[in-house]
């Protein structure tokens, strides 16, 4: 009988170490904040905080570079939990003031506090920041709280405790049962019940099988998987090991896009640490369970997020999807049974094991349990990475967490689920967001990209943008996707150029349905969603482009007309001299004219006219 590592005593040891660190100053070292200069901020803090005795009576100050806090647009973020304060947009030159004023003397630096967009007041306490107040951070909990490159810090917050528990229990079926009971569904987009997927793969136990983690986060704007990999890599590794134990696999791959160098670096560090300390590798924690994890860097093809294309890519083939069935659970990587889960799904596992399926299923809606992360971007006041219980309404996300629309503009729509998702409108603001409600509304949870659009957004242009994306990222294998998206794009391009015909709408609709129905893989099957949903909710905007040759949002260049108000024009000739294409003619002191056939609608004359005589509609 083997003796398992006593994880609790390991934990107690590292927790004591962390306590002895004194006042912890958490500085975000996620990709966003690093881009804003957080590495230099960290150095400066280390320099200035070295021999400081904080006003909290703790022995010393320790600077901790952490993973992403989610509130990227406010970076560099500095959080001091013991002072219950968050500083935003911290620059190198601000560090001294924070140390001197707040850490040493207890006086908060007001100008570096977050300003609530509704009240326009500084927020002094962490839990009062509207961006965080309505979130339930479980998957992302440790991101932003621990040093992602330290195994000790991960252990202190419970890493590998769940793995220890399942190894102690030594009952793989019970693990699958627990995951099934929790109601967890795939967070990569499809929403397939995770427990069921594990069960199907486990049915092939006995021979070689694999666990594959899909970290090929390709949706433009989505970065939850990157945050987990960068901010809490051990949580992912632990989830994978538990999955491996449950389905009887001893080898795994994490497929990460090469555009995520920091995630790759931190995963590599984490794997090495875990192997050195016996949390991965052979005889994990003294058991007879072996589990090795490899990293495979993807070359950044959107389609490689599709599981069969991802498998082909790991095998060294061109990333093209393969028909299903056979499903990876039966015949996957190198022809062996393979469990593929997305990063966020796997990052949920350890907490479910520790806190129980009932805890997990107490959150969410009837058919969608737990929490979901969303990458909130676009025209809202607070953008960033958020995590909310399933069933949270769009209104809560946009207006509470997001703090409402920027510059007091009007809300128009959200594109949810990335290029595979759909556009939702004001009428959907109060539906509880979960897998099934979103599908019913013509969108999908997808990986959780959420782009908020205001009244200045042209919906047809949005549809064109996403269609352009999917057309470029189509692998080119099946006809409906390759040729269908190309022709949908051609039609949309015509419409935004003002060259659309009314029958284009019908053709677009027909083609979209055929592409959705006939495509080989998920990419093609979902590619028409942005078009179908915008046709459904914003048909009048399409018609305006086609019939009236007008872009209601005033975005589409081709449909702008720039004219000179003769009554206001003083004939100063400034506009004629500015025009790059010589479209403006007129003599001095006489009203000028724009030749519409020459005008390229660049708007130079608009800015040049000192009398505001030039108008655009």
């Amino acid at each position: 009988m083997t003796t398992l590592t006593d994880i609790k005593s390991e934990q107690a040891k590292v927790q004591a170490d962390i306590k002895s660190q004194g006042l912890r100053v958490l500085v975000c070292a996620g990709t966003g904040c690093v881009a804003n200069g957080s590495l230099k901020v960290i150095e400066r803090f280390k320099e200035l905080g070295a021999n400081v005795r904080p006003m909290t009576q703790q022995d010393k100050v320790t600077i901790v570079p952490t993973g992403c806090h989610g509130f990227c647009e406010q970076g560099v973020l500095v959080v001091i939990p013991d002072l219950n304060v968050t500083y935003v947009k911290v620059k190198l030159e601000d560090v001294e003031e924070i140390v001197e004023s707040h850490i040493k003397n207890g006086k908060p630096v007001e100008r570096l506090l977050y300003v609530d967009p509704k009240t326009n007041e500084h927020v002094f306490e962490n839990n009062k920041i509207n961006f965080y107040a309505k979130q339930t951070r479980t998957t992302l909990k440790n991101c932003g709280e621990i040093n992602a490159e330290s195994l000790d810090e991960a252990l202190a917050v419970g890493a590998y405790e769940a793995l220890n528990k399942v190894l102690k229990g030594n009952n793989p079926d019970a693990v699958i049962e627990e995951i099934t009971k929790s109601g967890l569904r795939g967070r990569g987009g499809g929403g397939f019940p995770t427990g069921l997927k594990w069960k199907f793969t486990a049915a092939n136990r006995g021979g070689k099988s694999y666990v594959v983690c899909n970290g090929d986060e390709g949706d433009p704007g989505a970065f939850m998987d990157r945050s987990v990999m960068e901010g809490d890599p051990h949580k992912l590794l632990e989830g994978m090991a538990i999955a491996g134990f449950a389905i009887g696999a001893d080898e795994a791959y994490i497929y990460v896009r090469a555009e995520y160098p920091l995630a790759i670096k931190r995963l590599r560090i984490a794997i090495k640490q875990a192997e050195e300390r016996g949390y991965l590798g052979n005889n994990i924690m003294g058991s007879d369970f072996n589990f090795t994890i490899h990293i495979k860097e993807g070359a950044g093809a959107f389609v490689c997020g599709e599981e069969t294309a991802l498998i082909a890519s790991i095998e060294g083939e061109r990333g093209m999807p393969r028909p299903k069935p056979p499903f990876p659970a039966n015949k996957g990587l190198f022809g062996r049974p393979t469990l593929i889960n997305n990063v966020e799904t796997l990052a949920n596992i350890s907490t479910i094991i520790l806190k129980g399926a009932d805890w997990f299923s107490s959150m969410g809606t009837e058919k969608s349990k737990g929490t979901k992360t969303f990458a909130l971007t676009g025209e809202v006041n607070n953008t960033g990475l958020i995590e909310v219980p399933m069933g949270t309404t769009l209104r809560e996300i946009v207006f509470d967490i997001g703090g409402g629309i920027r510059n007091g503009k009007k809300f128009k729509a959200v594109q949810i689920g990335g290029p595979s998702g759909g556009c939702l409108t004001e009428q959907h603001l109060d539906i509880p967001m979960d897998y099934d409600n979103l599908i019913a509304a013509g969108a999908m949870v997808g990986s959780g990209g959420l782009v908020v659009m205001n009244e200045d957004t042209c919906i047809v242009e949005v549809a064109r943008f996403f269609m352009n994306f999917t057309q470029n990222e189509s692998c080119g294998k099946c006809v409906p996707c390759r040729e269908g998206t190309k022709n949908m794009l051609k039609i949309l391009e015509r419409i935004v150029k003002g060259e659309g015909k009314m029958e284009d709408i019908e053709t677009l609709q027909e083609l979209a349905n055929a592409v959705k129905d006939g495509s080989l893989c998920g990419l093609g099957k979902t590619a028409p969603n942005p078009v179908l949903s915008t046709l459904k909710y914003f048909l009048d905007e399409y018609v305006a482009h086609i019939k009236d040759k007008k872009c209601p949002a005033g975005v589409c260049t081709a449909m702008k007309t720039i004219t000179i108000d003769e009554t206001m024009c003083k004939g100063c000739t400034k506009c004629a001299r500015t025009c790059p294409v010589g479209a403006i003619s007129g003599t001095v002191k006489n009203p000028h004219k724009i030749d519409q056939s020459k005008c390229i609608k660049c708007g130079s004359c608009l800015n040049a006219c000192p009398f505001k005589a030039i108008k655009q509609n």
Partner: protein
Amino acid sequence: MTDDIKTLKVNGKEVSFTDEPNLLEVIKKAGFTVPTFCYRPDLTQYGACRMCVVEVKYPNGRVVVNSSCTMPPEANVEIFTNTARVRRIRKTVLELLLANHDRECTTCEKSGACELQKYSEEYGISTLKYAKKTEAEFLPIDNSNPALVRDPNKCILCGACVRACAEFQGHAVLGFANRGSKTVVQPLAGKELCDVDCVFCGQCQAVCPTGALTINSEVEKAWNALNDPEKKVVVQMAPSVRVALGELFGMKPGENVIGKIYAALRQMGATLVFDTNFSADLTIMEEANEFVERLTKGENLPLFTSCCPAWVRYMETQHPDMLNHLSSCKSPQGMLSPVLKTLLPKTRPEINLDNLVVLSIMPCTAKKVEAKRVELSKDGKFETDIVITTKEFGKMIKSAGIDFKALEPEEADSPFGEYTGAGTIFGASGGVAEAAVRTAYNMITGEELPMLDIKPMRGVDASSRCKEATLDIKGTPVTVRVVSTLREAEKSIQEIKAGTAKFQILEVMACPGGCVNGAGQPTSCEDASIKVQRAEGLYTEDKNLTIRCSHKNPDIQKLYNEYLEKPGSHKAHELLHTTYSDKKKGSYKDFSGCV
């Protein structure tokens, strides 16, 4: 209903199934067809064209649409192959493909045999909703070699060629590049076919549903020669042509039409009609002799056959260090031409080297390239002048207005028309080896092989791509390995390199199943049994011929007595043997007489 017989319903009709690889085959079994571009029974299932989509209704009421070529058959499901939903998908696929297609059908080599054309007609596509391919979207045509023409503007990206290249030849000369609508099939790094290690087997062309890959036609050249009163056109045709050509005229695969071929050629203006089967016998004399010599000396074994030009090019470009294994014998096509060019002017006053044109009809695209080898030329002239494939020959007969089916069979001319059963089975994978063994046995023992049929060497289906037989030649065991496809050949080469090979003769044919399934034959990729029927046609002829061993061919004996002396003689070497060289670096053009 018992447990082991499973059934499902196709359009309401119950059909049983056992080990059918996919739903499409079960649908066929039920008597229905579904259109497809990318499904080829001998290649892996791909699921890209979406033409074979069907509705599958499960017992629980769930209905899915999926490609039938990739779905495993499942018991108790109901399949619907013609619903509005699947027809709409198929129509959209056709409309989309046509919009992006160079639709110059009338001048397309594939016109009439094009699957896109066929389905478009069947589905009644009369107008196109989508924007036509623009001038800027047209890509250059690759016409760089004598065997194949690649026109990317007619490619529908079904991937059959890519799979054929990789799965048959293990060679992956063709691959996909780019993404989205810019995706193309192209040789490595966008080069032309002549600049990569293409062996010109043409299987990519054989599986291509459209005119994207076609045979580089020499029909015009052939007609020009036949119609030129100054020229004396002398024809030879390969064994497997006779069991496939009839298919183009509504006859069954495997039906032997050789007598009609001779007759048609005379009507078309050929001066003399001979038969490559004769020189297949000649090849056996030389190759069996070569083998016996090597066996006695114990050197350069195993002996590799050299009839297949794709295989020869593969050796020259991939394994030039092992060229000593290749038989120095020219191929049967390569042997007959110099024999004709040397002996005909001596015996027939009306024929001289200036007016003699050797026209060769082959099941093969690589033979066109073989004919342009500098090694097979003399005084700056190629020994074989024109090579056309079975398909091209079929077109010529049609354009000549000949009622092929009604032709009275005729005999070949003498003396290079007489052949034995050994010569005729060259057309099927295993035939060369079987024929060689029949004669080698006689050369070693002076006796005749008691049982001429060597069954383990026969079989041309996908499961017979590597066959082996060991024969006891008076106490000496000789093991013969027969492989078809270069992918299989490569495995044998690796065995030799590893020192684990236990065979003394390696017969290689690059096309799966041998020349019966050659890339110049009428299209046979939709039905895997066609090549089997063609091979049966050859073995039936072998069985029915009175003389079944090459060394017993009286005209062969006469040729040796009157001119060549004996197998392996100086004269035989001069006329019938060739050399090989390292062609690893450089373009195909560097090694050929082509300009």
